[in-house]
């Protein structure tokens, strides 16, 4: 079926491309342009491809697939753009339009369906994931698998991630997860904690530490029941309707509690929560509620700066660098808070790496579905990281954390460098376990 040009223009949001004056200001900040070295993988190039569709010059839409698959969605381009091109919306619209028409190969289809529709949104399934990681390690299967080399033959190079999986949490421990914690001293705020699906399955411990640290800082913390996946991975993969559904479930869940803020510790999720207002702006019943939810949504670093940290121990001369979460920087625009917190740790030596704002290549499930591309981007990131001679790389998002761990492993630096979530590091310094 030939879609009419008008319909294509609407679907791809062609109107938005007209704001692009092709000045190229976005080129130096785009990680994929820098790594792959051609305009086809630059923001300006990608926007032009959409323009060409809207002008009827490109009719074979498959031409857009690779360029848009390989975009990290890091949105660094938006921050450099002098004319305010809404690249994030264009990207989502284009992916949705492409997904609608595309027949995926069977394994990709299965992976998309099972991960996006079943696993991430289901607390139970994510717990199972968490449990199976635990079982896998405890049962000795991990050792056996490593020995047999079977990991190398897993699809999507999942084997590469195996060695960096976090220390798993036992089902018993998971069952004891905090659901509520009062402020330690005087209460400053009441906050609802957003657990996130990947954070909770893989980095359960960091979530627990976050709750404790918030309580130390003066917050009553509540883990609201019935919350679900933020929907970011869906939105970025072109499954907009599913993302909207998840957003509504979360809004309903959190509306039940009169908290001052909804606090999260994952830059990617936080950005999605921050954009619920935008995501649901066309649905009259939801628009205001979504905007109100987004206004309340904060990254944990913002709250900790606001409330003040508990006393921290001296870490004399420790060299620390910070790998930003793109979505936290470019979408939520939370830039200074993590650095402010780090600089409060007495005795550390904070060093910015070169090209600090460039994406690490994790980008949601990018490093799984575009493994080779992602590793090229990671290698470039590691080059700058190594140059800092840091002992600790701080991150603020689970995807970045895993990717930096992988980077350290690939460079053979496990002895001298560790990647930590900001909260782990602060908790360590505050003596919270």
């Amino acid at each position, binding site marked *: 079926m030939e879609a009419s040009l008008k319909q294509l223009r609407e679907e791809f949001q062609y109107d938005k491309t*007209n*704001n692009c*004056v*092709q*000045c*190229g*200001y976005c*080129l*130096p900040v785009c990680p994929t342009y820098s790594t792959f*070295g*051609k*305009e*086809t993988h*630059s923001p300006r*190039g990608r926007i*032009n*491809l959409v323009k*060409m569709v809207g*002008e009827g*010059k*490109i009719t*074979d839409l498959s*031409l*857009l697939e*690779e*360029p848009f698959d390989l975009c990290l969605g890091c949105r660094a381009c938006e921050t450099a753009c*002098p*004319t*305010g091109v809404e690249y994030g919306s264009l990207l989502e619209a284009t992916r949705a339009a492409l997904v609608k028409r595309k027949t995926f190969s069977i394994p990709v289809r299965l992976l998309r369906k099972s991960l996006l529709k079943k696993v991430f949104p289901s607390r139970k399934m994510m717990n199972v994931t968490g449990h199976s990681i635990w079982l896998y390690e405890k049962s000795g299967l991990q050792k056996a698998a490593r020995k047999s080399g079977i990991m190398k033959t897993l699809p999507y190079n999942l084997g590469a991630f195996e060695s960096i999986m976090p220390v798993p949490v036992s089902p018993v421990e998971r069952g004891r997860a905090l659901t509520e914690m009062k402020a330690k001293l005087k209460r400053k705020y009441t906050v609802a904690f957003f657990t996130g699906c990947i954070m909770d399955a893989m980095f359960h411990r960091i979530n627990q530490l976050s709750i404790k640290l918030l309580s130390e800082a003066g917050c009553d913390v509540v883990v609201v029941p019935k919350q679900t996946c933020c929907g970011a991975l869906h939105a970025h993969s072109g499954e907009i309707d599913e993302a909207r559904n998840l957003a509504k479930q979360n809004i309903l869940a959190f509306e039940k509690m009169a908290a001052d803020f909804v606090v999260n510790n994952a830059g990617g999720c936080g950005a999605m929560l921050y954009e619920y207002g935008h995501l649901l702006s066309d649905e009259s019943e939801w628009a205001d509620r979504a905007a109100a939810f987004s206004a309340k949504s904060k990254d944990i670093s913002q709250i900790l700066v606001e409330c003040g940290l508990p006393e921290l121990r001296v870490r004399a001369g420790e060299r620390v660098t910070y790998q930003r979460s793109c979505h936290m920087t470019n979408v939520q625009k939370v830039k200074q808070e993590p650095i402010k917190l780090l600089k409060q740790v007495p005795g550390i030596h904070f060093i910015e790496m070169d090209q600090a704002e460039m994406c690490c290549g994790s980008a949601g499930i990018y490093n799984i579905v575009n493994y080779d591309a992602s590793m090229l981007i990671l290698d470039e990131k590691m080059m700058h990281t190594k140059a800092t001679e840091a002992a600790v790389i701080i991150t603020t998002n689970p995807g970045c954390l895993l990717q930096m761990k992988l980077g350290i492993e690939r460079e053979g630096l496990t002895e001298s460098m560790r990647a930590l979530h900001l909260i782990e590091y602060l908790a360590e310094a505050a003596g919270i376990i």
Partner: protein
Amino acid sequence: MKVVISNHTQEIEAIIKTGRVLTNESDRFSYSFDASFGTYLPDLVVQTKSTEELVSLVKFANREKIPLYPRGQATSLSGGPLSVKGGIILDLSVMNDVLEIHEEDLVAVVSPGVLTANIHKAAEEKGFMYPPDPSSSHVSTIGGNLAENSGGPRGLKYGVTKDYVIGLEVITPEGELINTGGRTVKNVTGYDLTKLIVGSEGTLGIITKAVLRLIPKPKATATMMVIFDSLVDAGRAISKILSAGIFPSKMELMDQASIVAVEQFEPLGLPVDAAALILIEMDGHPLALQEEVSQAAELCRTVGARDVRIPKDKAEEAELWRARKLVSPAIVRIKPTKISEDATVPRSKIPEMCERLQEIRDKYGVHLVVFGHAGDGNLHPNIICDKTDHEEMSRVELAVSEIFTAAIELGGTLSGEHGIGIMKAPFMEMELGAAGLDMMKRIKDVWDPNNIMNPGKIFPEPGQKMELS
């Protein structure tokens, strides 16, 4: 119709051993534009860091009569790197490996793909300055700057790209590798081919290396903002300061339309009721600066300046320059299409040009914004319009032609820095006269007998007109 056929592609792939040959349609579309108008699909795109491979490729293309288009980062505002006649785009931005600062000779040696901002940085780290500063420095390549003879605000005091290039390595359209000039500031051996290549917009060959002159970095800078109730008075103040022997490093003008647009875009506390303002930067020894600032302030007041503001600290100073930086992004929020002209007039004619521009604005009912490097007569009259509105665009076309006519009548030029490309080719004869243009054409024919190097640029096709709608 493709000029490159599959046999050619095979041969090209054999020549380009270390680089890449891009033939996918998505890649070809991604090299079909620059920062001006139009889409021209190249047959293929070549990327290589190897000068030898490029030499072989040029020889091959010259033999087969395949057009070649050098391209930096495609920030050209005049259509310079567009493959208007099909053929091969040479993506020279990949040649970005050489950036040497030779302190003793006060020169930098660079390969063409190096970004100009990186040259600024490398020079400054060693206490030098590479003055040419187009506002696109952080994205444009030095190769593109050389080919367009780009300039920026500092052009007023320090001149433009051509004033800082003393040697080039060039592949001629027939595939010979030649060196022009050298490493010395003084050099009178034969014709000055360096200056001929600079500003030739890629029509006379491919620049593969350049030797640039550096100067010692000035010790300090000072900034002031002067506010006027009339645009023409602002123009007068500029002439007055310059003729009083004060030589600011930058003198940037913003008219009321641009002041208002910036304030709406990001409130910075600019005077929206003023007709114009000038931002002035001086550089030199800190003691001399103080004196020059107060002298310039006094001069502005005598021609009727409403107010002179001197920033208290570096932060406030940065704020003022931010206002100037925001003009471009701010004005495109009004309407999406920006026709950015750079017609330039002799300094003494600045007030008259300001008047003519206001007349043109009213006559054609176009949204005309005037800002830019006023100190060197390079006003940037920008017309803000909507390219999908054909009726409006035909008025814009008329207004643009009249701007060119006004500039030339006042003894000025079509283009101060953006180049001719395809956009301004139709007006060449108006400025140069038939004989002048013919002389240039003859030079082109001698260098490039098969017309393969960036064809369709600078020289108008018979009957070619400017087309915006």
